[in-house]
């Protein structure tokens, strides 16, 4: 019995340790974000009281945070939209209708999962320039959507493949056209997968560095990660202000994650079992 208790105790200890490892860096940054540079230098692990909120004001005004933030939202939402608009019909054609050559198309798209973004960035830079899409949010959206497309096609195809055939056939016999089929059969039945995709594609776009680094080079269109990477250079000397900026970038994502954490977990689990 005691050995039982010991092993349970050890298990909890290990879990609590991992919890601390996961949280401490964030707690430390949050704490630093309301301190002053002098305090941090004197007592790196201490607490400043009362909290020094002005770091946030400084970070917000100096770093154009509001504009970066807005750009990130616009790009991420549009990317999710484009991905879904392109992949839901495609997955339907591939997995339900099975139009000719769809399997070839599917495999070619799948290859995209393995392509490093670096093998497309160089010429894309010049392509976007000649299309006039450089330094526009739509340009970044198109690239990010293309990069995110293979995963979405794969997930949706897997979900549709599991669709009971008799449901499809019943709808066909009912005289449903493709559009009605999509609207009233495919989309409702794939909703869990679609929700998971929304979460993933949004998160990827929100966190993307390379695409905006090259394709959004003016301050008016920059997204949060780029803004932050510059932010670090700009305030490198003052850890408190860097911490405030970082916290502002982390908190919204954290909130979304905590609110939707079921979708995250289910999405990953579903993706892995396919």
């Amino acid at each position, binding site marked *: 019995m005691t050995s039982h208790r010991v092993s349970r105790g050890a298990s909890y200890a290990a879990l609590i340790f991992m919890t601390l490892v996961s949280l401490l860096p964030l707690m430390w940054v949050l704490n630093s974000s309301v301190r002053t540079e002098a305090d941090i230098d004197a007592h790196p692990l201490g607490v400043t009281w009362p909290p020094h909120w002005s770091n946030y004001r400084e970070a917000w005004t100096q770093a154009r945070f509001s504009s970066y933030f807005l750009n990130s939202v616009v790009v991420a939402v549009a990317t999710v939209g484009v991905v879904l608009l392109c992949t839901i019909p495609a997955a339907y054609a591939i997995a339900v209708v099975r139009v000719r050559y769809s399997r070839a198309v599917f495999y070619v798209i799948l290859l995209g999962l393995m392509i490093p973004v670096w093998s497309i960035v160089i010429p894309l*830079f010049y392509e976007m320039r000649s299309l006039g899409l450089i330094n526009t949010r739509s340009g970044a959206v198109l690239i990010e959507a293309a990069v995110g497309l293979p995963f979405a096609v794969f997930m949706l195809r897997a979900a549709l493949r599991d669709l009971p055939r008799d449901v499809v056939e019943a709808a066909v016999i009912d005289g449903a*056209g493709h559009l009605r089929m999509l609207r009233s059969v495919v989309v409702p039945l794939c909703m869990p997968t679609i929700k998971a995709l929304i979460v993933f594609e949004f998160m990827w776009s929100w966190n993307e560095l390379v695409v905006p680094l090259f394709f959004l080079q003016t301050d008016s269109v920059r997204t949060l990660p780029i803004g932050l990477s510059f932010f670090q250079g700009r305030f490198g000397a003052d850890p408190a202000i860097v911490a405030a900026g970082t916290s502002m970038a982390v908190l919204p994502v954290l909130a979304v994650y905590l609110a939707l954490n079921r979708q995250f977990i289910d999405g990953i689990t579903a993706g892995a079992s396919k």
Partner: protein
Amino acid sequence: MRNAANRLHLPGPARPAAALTALVVAGILALAGCVSGQGSSGTSAPTGGPQPGDSAHLTVLSQLGDNPALQPVLNRLNAAYMKSHPKTKVTIQYLTLDELTKTVPSTLASGSGPDVIDYDANESTIGSLANAHLLVPLDTYANSYGWHAKLTPSTVTRLTYDGHLYGVGRSSEGVGLFYNADLFRRLGIAAPTSYAAMIAAAQQLKSHGVIPFAFGDKDQWPSSHLIGAAIHSMVPVNTIKAVETLAGHGRWTDPAIVSAIATAAGWVKDGYVTPDFNGVSFAQAEGEFYTGKAGMFVEGTGVVPDLEANMAHVDVRFLPFPMKDPSAKQQMEGGLGGAWAITTASNAPAVAADWINFVHFSPEAQRAWLAAGVLPTTSTSSTPSGLSALIKDSLQVTQAAQADGGVGFWTGYASSPLVTDAWNSGAQVVLSGQQSAAAFANNLQDALDQARSGGK
């Protein structure tokens, strides 16, 4: 039974195939090469577009991200310009030099860059942009505003490529030796006026637990100032020039240069610089000097404004970085600290030129910059009164070096991005003692050879 097939059976299957074929064809056509560089090729200044006072919106990219103390100065001048030109709006964006060099070439190549950039005045930076026709030649504006007569001859020379002026030097800069005179007095250390005195001071500071030289090389360029100081202290400027220019025939493997690099690495080995310097940013190193954790700082006069702002109550002095051979003429690393240039992406180059003329040449601008500690690029007859001791020091030291042994180059950053790339990583390794000075010099020379053979 109404079958979906009756309605839908048409030429369907061929469609995706056709689309795929079209794509493949498009891909092959693309392979034939539709990628090309910036098409514009003008070498004469465009005079069209909005004129000063017209409605225009300028974007300015400034490298004062590294000098927070100067941002308010430029902001005030800009506000004054917009007030006297109500139809013109000018947005300034501040980046650090590191961020700027990482993004400017591709931003400009993207064809939608800013109107005005404040970029480094080297062959490898402004020079390469000028050669790529990404910058507007300024000759027409220089003539109408009389810039040639106002700028010092060496400023004009450093910014002239293929016979055209491409930039307006924003500041004169030279690398020298800052020291915390209060701290030196308190510890009873003599001023580092000679090389021997400087080394003696370093030893004494170290024995008192003070870092002799504040130094952080995480950003990679500060090594150019530390090792560059050693090179300019030990190698004649003409030899340096032969190495730091693409047209020259000098070699990094010149024994004098190798020995200077080894000397700088020796300071590190003797424990004279900030520990773990490869993990310390420039801003942090600067902070160590502000707070008296370090007693000396080998840096360019460009940091004077920051020192003024952060060490108002400390007696900071500036000396020429001493020549290792006391009988040699005093030389100095440096040149220009950034230059204003107009990009070919600008729709309003005439307005941009007018803005540059105001923020750099107007009497109020000249006053404001000098008072903030920025050394002028215009020929000044006399030193105005009311300047702080530190600003006076830096002005006098730089002018004296100019007249004596000469102001050299920004070490490793002058000739080509290839050399700079080799410098950035190599200097970290050679200073940490993990590579010999000779091996480092060899790598730099390889990069220079590649650049000189046109394989940039």
